[in-house]
């Protein structure tokens, strides 16, 4: 069984860390980071051409991480593949024994490094979950029999700070119907947003992992406030970063404290840490969080 699933079932606070495949074929840094977090997380979540930029694939990177003894979470978006390619990718994950799959709609091609590329979106996140659920039932989306049935533990994403938030909750319900068992949130920095969201979704049958992006500077926080939809960094955190001598350390501290508080208040069932190229800091965040 998937470690992640097992952790949730045991009622443990699950931790995953996000990693992006390299642009190119040099996996040295990724493997170093993997070694640094091995044993500290339940899964390593690998982005799928994140921000619509060309990288090595999520599946190949998941394999490398598996070889390093970590449990991968395969992210898969609807942007670049039609339903044949998506199911093929899912089956390939199945062959490698990769069970955790995170279904995403995906950023639009126009925001990436090949803006002229054709965006596909044959399946949205709900469709990907439906496809994976069908495969788990031994058939493809068209009802054709499979030789050998894969097993997945399916997840999806949600943006708790969204107006109107009800629209996110409605979609979350569909994702659960389509097979999602766990959700990662967009990065959250304030308890109030999570409290509201937990209240709104308390009757839904799925695990919730708070998204954590450690801040590296006050400038980064301000940038995210102004430019990244669904992200809100409270002023007091920006002030803390401004005042701090070692901003990165302060960001790690803020992230750790936040996870700890979220856990103590029972607002989430786990945390998903997106360190954006600084995965070596994940253990320090977990130390701070007491995990």
């Amino acid at each position, binding site marked *: 069984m998937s470690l992640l699933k097992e952790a949730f079932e045991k009622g443990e606070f699950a931790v995953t860390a996000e990693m992006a495949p390299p642009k190119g074929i040099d996996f040295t840094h990724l493997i170093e980071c993997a070694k640094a977090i091995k044993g500290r997380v339940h899964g390593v979540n690998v982005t799928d051409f994140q921000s619509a930029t060309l990288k090595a694939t999520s599946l190949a990177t998941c394999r490398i991480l598996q070889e390093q003894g970590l449990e991968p979470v395969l992210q898969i978006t609807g942007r670049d593949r039609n339903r044949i390619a998506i199911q093929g990718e899912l089956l390939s994950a199945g062959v490698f024994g990769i069970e955790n799959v995170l279904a995403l709609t995906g950023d639009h091609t126009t925001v990436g490094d090949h803006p002229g590329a054709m965006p596909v*979106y044959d399946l949205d*996140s709900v469709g990907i979950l439906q496809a994976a659920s069908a495969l788990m039932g031994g058939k493809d989306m068209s009802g054709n029999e499979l030789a050998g049935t894969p097993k997945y533990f399916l997840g999806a994403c949600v*943006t708790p700070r*969204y107006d109107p938030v009800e*629209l996110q909750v409605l*979609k979350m319900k*569909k994702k659960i119907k389509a097979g999602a068992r766990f959700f990662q949130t967009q990065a959250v920095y304030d308890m109030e947003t999570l409290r509201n969201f937990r209240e709104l979704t308390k009757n839904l049958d799925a695990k919730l992992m708070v998204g954590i992006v450690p801040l590296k500077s006050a400038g980064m926080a301000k940038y995210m406030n102004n430019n990244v939809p669904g992200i809100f960094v409270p002023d007091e955190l920006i002030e803390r970063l401004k005042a701090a001598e070692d901003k990165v350390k302060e960001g790690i501290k803020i992230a750790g404290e936040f996870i700890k508080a979220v856990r103590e208040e029972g607002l989430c069932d786990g945390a998903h840490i997106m360190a954006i190229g600084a995965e070596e800091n994940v253990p320090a965040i977990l130390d701070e969080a007491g995990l």
Partner: protein
Amino acid sequence: MVISEKKPFEEILEYLKDAKKVVILGCSLCATVCRVGGEPEVLEMKKKLEENGKQVLGYKILDPACNYMQVRKDLKGLKQELSEADAVISLACGDGTQTIAKLTDIPAYPGNNTMFIGEVERVGQYEEVCLACGNCQLGWTGGICPVTKCSKGLLNGPCGGATKDGKCEVKPEHDCAWIQIYEKLKKLNKLDNLEVIREPRNYAINVHPNRIDLKDVCNKCTL
């Protein structure tokens, strides 16, 4: 309506680099409303071509350019000119240009870029509204098209990316279609529509080119 824009004149000249004598054809409907294929634009094209050393043998505003029988009839009046001309410039939409091309033995070049099926908000302002997807979803979306107006064409609700003021993450000058659909359905008391999983679209119906023959659909048809 089919919304078209003028092609850059240099592109048209490039098509015509080996042509000396031309005929210009406009269209009385969409292209006229879009101000790319009515009388003033045809005359403007005539003037510009003449300034560039071309000889314009004749011109006509087809009524409309997308009606095969009508165009065949209209072109009879230009028989002489067309037999002498080296090329035709069409100031209709892509459909009209294809009709013209079908009915002429000399090259028919497009003078416009066909942009989208859209609504005339007011003269000079058009909004893209329909991609002719072949399986209309408007029945459950409150009349707002997610196929066209959501940048990702999503059918199961929004991505997480809309901005604080409800704009699309992909095109910040556009309202997020899904927030609009939500607001509209809320007003109509039909938010339940958003709980139904919409199956992935069936692209098998989009094998182009499509044809519809009403005679096949209705045997009483007197067409």
